């Protein structure tokens, strides 16, 4: 049965750090796992370097190489995984 009143959504203590935007999530993921350097992620031509890094990540992880932050790429970024970088030391 449908709920009588709209469901409340609560921000639970300890979860405030969440809520990164998709792009912010992508940037931190690409830097953390070695697909981009801090500099590349922060440069003004961010768009180009992001696409390049995304393509590199998609190739490495066997995803479709679109260079775009598409749904399957975003899903991969949120999947539980090993903390060792994929590229470099």
């Amino acid at each position, binding site marked *: 049965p449908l709920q009588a009143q709209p*469901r*409340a*959504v*609560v921000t*639970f*203590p*300890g979860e405030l750090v969440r809520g990164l935007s998709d792009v912010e999530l992508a940037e931190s993921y690409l830097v953390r*796992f070695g697909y981009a350097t801090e500099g590349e992620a922060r440069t003004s031509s961010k768009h180009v370097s992001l696409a390049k890094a995304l393509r590199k990540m998609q*190739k*490495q*992880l*066997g995803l479709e190489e679109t260079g775009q932050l598409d749904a399957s790429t975003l899903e*991969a970024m949120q*999947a*539980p*995984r*090993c*903390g*060792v970088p*994929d590229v470099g*030391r």
Partner: protein
Amino acid sequence: FLTFEGDLKWDHTDLTYRVMNYSPDLDRAIIDDAFMRAFKVWSDVTPLTFTQIYSGEADIMIMFGTQEHGDGYPFDGKDGLLAHAFPPGRGVQGDAHFDDDEFWTLGTGLVVKTRYGNANGADCHFPFVFEGRSYSRCITEGRTDGLPWCATTASYDADKTYGFCPSELLYTQGGNSDGSPCVFPFVFGGVSYDACTTDGRSDGYRWCATTASFDQDKKYGFCPNRDTAVVGGNSQGDPCVFPFTFLGESYSTCTSAGRQDGKLWCATTGSYDADKKWGFCPDRGYSIFLVAAHEFGHSLGLDHSSVREALMYPMYRYVEDFQLHADDVRGIQYLYGRGSGPEPTAPAPVPTQEPQPVPTEAGSASTTEEEEEEGTPEPTAEPSPVDPSRDACMENKFDAITEINGELHFFKNGKYWTRSSVWKSGIQGAFSIADTWPGLPAVIDAAFQDVLTKRVFFFAGRHFWVFSGKSLLGPRGIEKLGIGKEAGRIAGALQRGRGKVLLFSGENYWRLDVKVQRVDKGYPRATDDVFTGVPLDARNVFLYQDKYHFCQGHFCWRMTPRYQVDRVGYLKYDILQCP
């Protein structure tokens, strides 16, 4: 596959590992077993051996930790990063770290190993029926002492088998109290506590005093997680409190109310509205075996693979019947070579023979020599975990199969089942190998009973044990039998009359004179010279009803004494005779 820059690898093959501390999510025995199996994934296909040590510096140091845990690469709470490891080398190199904000299981949800009761340490069976009601968690109903318990079969009412669930009222882990239970209330820092606390610690592990005053006696232990312990949130490890109030409503089970991601949570006090204490309810969790096998690949020199099905692919994926992918095999053999098959993994020291170290940090082993001197042995290990409800027909393969006293024995991972060819009583068990043959490792490769003396020979790696009844001789190296290094493991044995037994390894076999415990001259010989048509890499070779059986995967080849294969059948249906 990829290796690390410069093909970093170990310069020796007899590696050691040490488990520094344990997650409260799983019983210690289950974690040790998972790590042993995770190493065996790699030792099965290389010359590498892995031996667990309990003090001093090991090649691979293993630890559980949360957030920043000392190496500058912080974890990130529940989910996300699960673990990491460093390439081979000295110091932190080679070490493997696991995020203890995760819920560690064997991949299919909560594992509650019981202690005491009458179920021999079996796992809880959820749900179970007690006095007509069904329960999916440990309960205190029926008891006055408040100790949580569960049934280890589907119905306590029918089977009456039960065990006690992890609880700080029953035992603690680590610390300096030899596993003694908590004493409530206890005084710490002048304050009285009537429950486990994380106060005084920065690593978030829950502890208690095991006397009335920690301030006076300094005796403490870490609290095992209850079955309803929450994961993450802001009260990791505390149990749910049911019912609890949330936005004025009462909840007596976990709920996803208030969340958009659908994750189940509960409050850890009677009122979330008042106290705002909460955590996620246990879910399937992450298989410590699978994650460890991946991280140990890094510890040995493998980098991430882009092959999605490979173990070294960076993302977690639960696999029920794990098999190492060819990409992983190529990678690890590129570094260490094939070897002659799996090398022996030294069995864990038999608890009653060596003093156990006294853990001092979150369940870790002692860190200083003199502590070792002072260490008092932990209670001898509980009888090996046996779960009578584990059905042999669920097993896809067995470590070893042989006939002993007229009964076929099926060995697997510390357990065994029997099936009598005389009595139509069906499959019996699971029984504990350790209880029947104390001193044997959990995983064996082959076994046979000498027809004349009834002694039973067991093989694991390049070691063998001989049992006359309960008395044991061994382990000894199979080189004492005259078997050369080319045999990494014994796959099976065929008893031949006149005190002779054929031992199979790889594509060869030796003829052992059981009386003098020496193989005859002129061996090994090639198996397919005589036994044509059977698989040369059989996992199990045994004599049954006077016929030779060679099993590989799901199938078994049966051969007559005239060396003719007269049947290829299913291990499960023709040998085990599962329904």
